[in-house]
């Protein structure tokens, strides 16, 4: 029996070490691809005049769909900001998903809206639409307000798609703040469509905590004051500038964030719209669309734009952040299991062979393996003598690599968009990067494990997401 455990521990040791090396190598490769893609994008962008799109008579039409649930405090400012977006051919559809507060009344009064005789088809199944409202004031001609029975975010988006009239749909979180030129940047890849059909585009999400906000727009950018939002700035920078950029380049991107994404409406409708049976509807839609296109043997692309296009408030308490990460894990698992046919399937190209496999091994399984590794190490300390020198070496290796990766993400940000003006902010973020692997990372592993357990227990709820809100802190959130 002892020999068996010796061999087992030998295998486990080498497996964990091997996996760590593979994960870190993949991070390095992705960072390298991102750096090249980012440089090319910025060079190409220096030749682009987005004003050409504003003035052009041949631009694709866009329907911006914003689901709203209990958003009475900020909805008016946010709708005004949406209506002020730079584009000449778009409509804004706000979907009140059965809010229990005064969202409905607030919008009706603020925009002088009345019910219209809107005739439409439930092309994508969704909860009953109680009414469609338009403004009496012609200044708000672009705005359509839908009131429906509560069915969740995915269901509200489906309702918006049913009502929308345009070629492209742009789904956004109504509580997020879009950059005024976001639509121009998102639509451009659709206009550049070559032999491959562009089915979706997504951009970078930035963190709005502590930023100064006026009339639903970012007036001054500040680094979050609290540790938790600040550490998420690092996380987001790493994820968006170092990973997604590379996956976009490899055409293996699985996720366009629900906070902002633009899709070809025809493909979305053919795929059946957003899935209401998952808590990760944004990822599930992209995976389903890609799968559909591959099965139809159509050449396609999902494009990722490194420009910061939308600002959002991230959780600032452990409790809410834990709920969010738990939900993300469950959403990932639901999507991965629902589309398990993709796993290492050459029929789906890089998306199946690399993209899906990466998410399965590194996004879903890595935290679980990390947790099991921690338990294994604890048992080793109790029942056997671990190789402390080697453990220390491994710890330093993992720690320095993680901090180094974060510092490179900071440099990527600094050389590209440098949104944080003060030099002190860079130093603050670096200090956060030094602390993150010790204090924050174990928590993310814990939340991911909890997500796995909850998934197996059949938990399907979103979890309450309390937000501080734009209004409460008078200009700052």
């Amino acid at each position, binding site marked *: 029996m002892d020999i068996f455990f010796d061999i087992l521990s030998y295998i486990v040791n080498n497996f964990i070490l091997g996996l760590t090396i593979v994960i870190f190598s993949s991070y390095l490769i992705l960072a390298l691809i991102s750096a090249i893609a980012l440089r090319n994008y910025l060079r190409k962008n220096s030749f682009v005049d987005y004003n050409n799109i504003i003035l052009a008579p041949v631009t694709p039409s866009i329907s911006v769909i914003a689901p709203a649930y209990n958003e009475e405090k900020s909805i008016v400012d946010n709708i005004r900001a949406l209506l002020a977006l730079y584009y000449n051919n778009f409509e804004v559809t706000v979907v009140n998903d059965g809010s229990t507060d005064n969202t409905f009344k607030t919008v009706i009064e603020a925009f002088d809206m009345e019910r219209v005789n809107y005739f439409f088809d439930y092309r994508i199944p969704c909860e009953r639409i109680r009414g469609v409202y338009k403004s009496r004031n012609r200044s708000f001609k672009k705005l359509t307000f839908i009131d429906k029975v509560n069915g969740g975010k995915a269901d509200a988006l489906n309702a918006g798609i049913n009502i929308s009239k345009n070629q492209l749909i742009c789904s956004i979180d109504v509580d997020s703040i879009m950059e005024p030129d976001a639509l121009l940047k998102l639509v451009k890849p659709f206009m550049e469509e070559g032999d491959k059909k562009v089915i979706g585009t997504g951009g970078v999400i930035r963190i709005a905590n502590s930023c100064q906000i006026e009339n639903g727009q970012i007036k001054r950018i500040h680094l979050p004051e609290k540790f938790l939002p600040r550490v998420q700035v690092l996380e987001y920078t790493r994820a968006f500038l170092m990973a997604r950029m590379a996956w976009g380049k490899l055409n293996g991107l699985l996720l366009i964030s629900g906070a902002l994404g633009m899709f070809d409406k025809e493909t979305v409708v053919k795929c059946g719209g957003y899935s209401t049976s998952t808590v990760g509807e944004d990822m599930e839609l992209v995976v389903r669309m890609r799968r559909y296109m591959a099965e139809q043997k159509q050449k396609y692309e999902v494009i990722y734009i490194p420009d910061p296009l939308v600002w959002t408030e991230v959780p600032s308490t452990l409790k809410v952040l834990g709920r969010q990460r738990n939900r993300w894990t469950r959403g990932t698992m639901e999507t991965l299991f629902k589309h398990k046919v993709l796993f290492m399937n050459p029929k789906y190209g890089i998306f199946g062979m690399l993209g899906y496999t990466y998410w399965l091994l590194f996004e879903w399984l890595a935290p679980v393996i990390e947790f099991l590794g921690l338990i294994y190490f604890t048992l080793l300390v109790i029942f056997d003598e671990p190789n402390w020198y080697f453990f220390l070496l491994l710890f330093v*290796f993992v720690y320095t690599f993680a901090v180094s990766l974060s510092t490179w993400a900071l440099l990527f940000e600094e050389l590209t968009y440098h949104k944080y003006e003060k030099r002190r902010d860079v130093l603050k973020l670096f200090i956060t990067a030094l602390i993150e692997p010790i204090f924050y990372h174990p928590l993310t592993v814990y939340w991911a494990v909890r997500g796995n357990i909850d998934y197996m227990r059949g938990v399907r709820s979103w979890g309450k997401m309390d937000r501080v809100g734009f209004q409460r802190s008078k200009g700052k959130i």
Partner: protein
Amino acid sequence: MNKRFIQLRFILNIVLITFISLIANLPVYPASEKESAELVLQRERDYEKRIIWGERFFSLHLDALALKQFERANKIKPGAYFPQYRIKQVTLRLNQSQNRFVSEFIFDFNKPGFLITALILVIVFSITSMVIALATALINRNNMMRAEKRKQYLLEEYQTMLVNYLFATEINQEFISKIKKISNNKFNRRILIDQMIDLSITLTGEEKEKLKNLYLLLGLDKDSYKRAMSRKWHIKAKGFRELAFMNIPSANKEIRRCLTSRNDILRMEAQFATIRLYPDNSFEFLEQLKKRYTLWEQLNVYETITFHQLNLPDFDHLLKSTNDSIVMFSLRMIRIFQLRNTFNTMLELLSHKSAEIRNQAIHVMGALKINDCLPQLKRIYKTETYENCLEIIKAIASINDESMLGFLKLVLDKEDDVQLQIEAAMAINKLGIKGSDTLNKLLTSDYKNYQIIVKHVLDKRIN
């Protein structure tokens, strides 16, 4: 109650002690003589097992596992020669593969040397790159701010100088030497060229020519030409742009070569330069293009045509192109520039193999309000795709011909698709009094969902 509690505690203690003893492999109570003999036998068996497995691992070069077995065997029989001999051998083998510096001066990791060396190298690399990245991030900010300040200063200087030059009656040598002095390095010259390009957009006629002369006088055309011939695409594209704006056709061959480049930006800049520099055959490239002519390229060419008021290419001829994207571009331009004389060729496109082109042709005929196409549209309705049927109804609505009322009523009556019904009703609504009367009659009808459709169509807030 108290007695029961004591009993329970006693049982729990026994279970706990047994469990811990089992794990720690300790005897629960002192052994008798017979039991001692059994223990000796057990130790002997254990020792043999360790040696056998140790040898197996040793022969497989699994040194870490072998070492563990021999160390355990040595613990069982501390004086035995063989395990000690093997421990020395294994340690030696591990040390041979280890980094000597690491094993001698730092720690003895008891792991393969290449692994330890690799880990240490990664740690050193991580720390170094971390320091470099942080320093670059901090220094970059300073450099950027300095460059931005310098740029602003130069822009203001150049602007004043150029305006003075343009409105001066004669060329002042002092001015030339001053501007030459300021633009003595690459960075400064680049700013000057950018400034001249910005200015050239707003100028026409004599002033524009004067600016070009200054550009040549300062030898900036050589900078632009050098850039146009660069091997880096982004520098080359910049060179093309500069030459195009300043109207200098020196890099003709290179520009034409790049008209079919795989790099979309380079291709677009070459197209733009061709249109600007060679007005006689500026749109020739459209006939040669094999790749898809993207909407983005089309949009930029349209902007160039309108901004510089250039002559339009022969779109009637381009409608016959074998490249579908060129046909789409031509149709779009025909609509924008209202070129109704291309009607006959457009009519031929209604039987084109591409549904997208047929759709665009229908759309353009509707937008140009060409009545003559109505019989043809009516004829193809039955055989067309869903999207094209919708477009046909929209075109009929735009053309607004009362003779189509019967057809539209038929569509409204026979079609079950909501969107087709709405479009047909909207087309009827546009047919003046006759159309309104028809819709009002339908409003009172209980047949199908006419009431809802007509209410939707008549609601001015929706449409």
